[in-house]
């Protein structure tokens, strides 16, 4: 039976889970079934609410328990922290999930846990809840399970039959930094379960080709997360890791979590007045370039530019470094080229490719379609912009990048970037 005590436990365990940023309910379409409650919609999923920090709430993100035997420096739940600890009972958690779901508060459950006793024991309990939800409560909504590093393959295989998505967090992109902050962990312990899940998915695909009714295994694939700003990794290290992960067939999302100073007493960690939000934002933009804009990681960051420019977005930064790629003719360039124009997104590129079959497009048309002309106009030619009677073209090649750049950076952006750079200084030894 649920009581006031449950409420307190839910509060504690949600607060313990909130630094895990993954939340999406995407990646799998599953229609409702007779006798079961729930469905998954695919696409980008459904966000049911937005918290005061602006982050979406799609799944009930909660830990089964925040007791943990590990002592990872960056984690709020490390065993040496003096915080309130709680454990939800299996029936409490299942009741809350079902009742929330039926009221359309959530898309499903994102269950994680501190490691108690040993990895197998913990994973066993997570799996039991997923199994119960599917078989006893006939729950057909989204389930995201954290897989506990070091648990057995049998448990992973069972969990994967009930979960839509599974995830193991890398947290720190370089192994030596990870070992410094979390001596009990190494990269092997993270990549091993990832590999096992991938193996399971691929075998399942093969089986389903032969027998149509084989139940699906982790249909929405895997995700992972890296903490940004807790260690000395450059954006290049982080993005190379992401790019490598996206090369794996089942990795769907890599999340970046700006480090929030939770354990200020630990000398191994930097003390940040606020999380590096601009940097985190730039990393997500770069991530989007990798996934939807056909960019390669070497184009976004390289030896000279190991960190992303905080003042301008990574696509604009790339364009400013490569004036030779412009101007792009809106009326003839192919889709990939259009995607590289600052101010053009996938949506406007799609609109352009479709519309220009009917006639030449002008800058007026582009503006109407929602292209950010303030940026794009320096990088394109189109209809009247090329005509002899219009004003002379002033593009990136006429202005040169160094004179164009100040025109495209607002005071507010400069200020935000400067503030964050100051934060970083404290980090240097």
């Amino acid at each position, binding site marked *: 039976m649920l009581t006031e005590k449950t409420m307190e436990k839910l509060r504690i365990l949600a*607060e313990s889970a909130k630094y895990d940023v993954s939340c999406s309910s995407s990646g799998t379409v599953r229609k409702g079934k007779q006798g079961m409650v729930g469905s998954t919609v695919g696409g980008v999923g459904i966000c049911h609410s937005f918290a005061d920090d602006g982050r979406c709430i799609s799944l009930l993100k909660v830990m089964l328990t925040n007791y943990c035997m590990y002592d990872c420096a960056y984690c709020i739940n490390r065993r040496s922290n003096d915080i309130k600890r709680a454990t939800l009972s299996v029936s409490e958690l299942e009741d809350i999930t079902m009742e929330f779901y039926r*009221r359309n508060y959530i898309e499903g459950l994102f269950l994680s846990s501190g490691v108690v006793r040993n990895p197998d024991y913990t994973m066993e309990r997570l799996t039991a809840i997923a199994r119960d939800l599917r078989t006893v409560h006939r729950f057909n909504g989204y389930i995201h399970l954290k897989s506990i590093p070091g648990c057995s393959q049998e448990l992973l295989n069972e969990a994967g039959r009930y979960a839509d998505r599974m995830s193991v967090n890398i947290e720190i992109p370089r192994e030596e930094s990870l070992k410094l902050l979390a001596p009990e962990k190494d990269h092997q312990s993270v990549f091993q379960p990832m590999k096992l899940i991938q193996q399971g998915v691929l075998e399942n695909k093969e089986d389903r080709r032969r027998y149509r009714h084989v139940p699906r295994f982790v249909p929405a694939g895997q995700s992972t997360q890296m903490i940004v700003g807790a260690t000395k990794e450059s954006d290049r290290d982080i993005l190379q890791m992401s790019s490598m992960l996206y090369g794996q067939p089942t990795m769907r999302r890599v999340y970046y979590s700006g480090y929030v100073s939770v354990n200020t007493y630990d000398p191994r960690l930097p003390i940040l007045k606020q999380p590096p939000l601009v940097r985190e934002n730039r990393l997500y933009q770069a991530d989007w370039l990798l996934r939807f804009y056909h960019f390669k990681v070497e184009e976004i960051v390289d030896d000279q530019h190991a960190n992303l420019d905080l003042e301008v977005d990574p696509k604009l930064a790339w364009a400013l470094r490569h004036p030779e790629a412009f101007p792009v003719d809106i009326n003839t360039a192919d889709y990939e080229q259009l995607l590289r124009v600052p101010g053009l997104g996938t949506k406007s590129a799609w609109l352009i490719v479709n519309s220009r079959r009917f006639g030449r497009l002008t800058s007026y048309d582009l503006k109407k379609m929602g292209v950010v002309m303030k940026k794009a106009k320096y990088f394109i030619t189109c209809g009247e912009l090329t005509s002899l009677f219009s004003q002379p073209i002033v593009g990136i090649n006429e202005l040169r990048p160094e004179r164009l750049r100040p025109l495209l950076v607002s005071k507010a952006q400069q200020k935000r970037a400067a503030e964050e750079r100051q934060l970083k200084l404290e980090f240097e030894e």
Partner: protein
Amino acid sequence: MTIYVFDGTMDGLLTAVFDAFALHEQPQQLLMKGDALPLFCDHTYQVTADEEKARRVWAGLEKRLSREALRLISVSWLSELRELNQPLFHYLCKVFRQGDIARNFADPDVLAVTNIARRVMHEQLRMKQFIRFQKAKDGTYLAVVAPDHNVLPLITDHFQDRFNDQPWLIYDAKRHYGYYHDGKSVIRITFEDEAAVPFNLTNGKMNADVLSENDRLFQDLWRTYFKAICIKERMNPRKQLSDMPRRYWKYMTEKN
């Protein structure tokens, strides 16, 4: 200048298209009954909605446009916006002259209709996100909404599919009708006496005497969770407002 005046129904608009071709003229404007006539109009024509004519025009559109484009037109109509009439009318006329122009977004009429349809689609998604059910003593789940556009017809399939084993009612307080799912099928309902319904239309709250026993507890649990999941160091009310505009808050459990 020729002006057509129609009754504000979809049939009326389609009839206007029919008449424009039958009379061999292209009116500059299509107005709704009650709209103010502009100065210097020398010829107005009253369109009388005709089901048969409308059906023929729609059949003609079906021949010329893709299913996707037709759906977009139906969706745009649910916007209930007056500024849709004119571009939609011109768009449909152009289809009969120029063929399938549905993807010519440089055409101002096509773009206007597409953008309005996109707004409607955006709002139907928001309904799927932000609808909050309360459970009544008899087991019915109730949600009250007041969307800008008439989007309920677009979301019933989703809720029927998802909550097929629970009876639910989604009621549009602005348009005074709702959809009820009895566990098998979805029916459109209206209340004869809206004042007597056991819930408050302005904040969506169910009266205490019909609310199921532990519903209040789950509402409180949800509010607790909503507060706990926020990271104080990252407060960003602007992003919250852009993703979850304030006009939807009044029916949302966590914000009341």
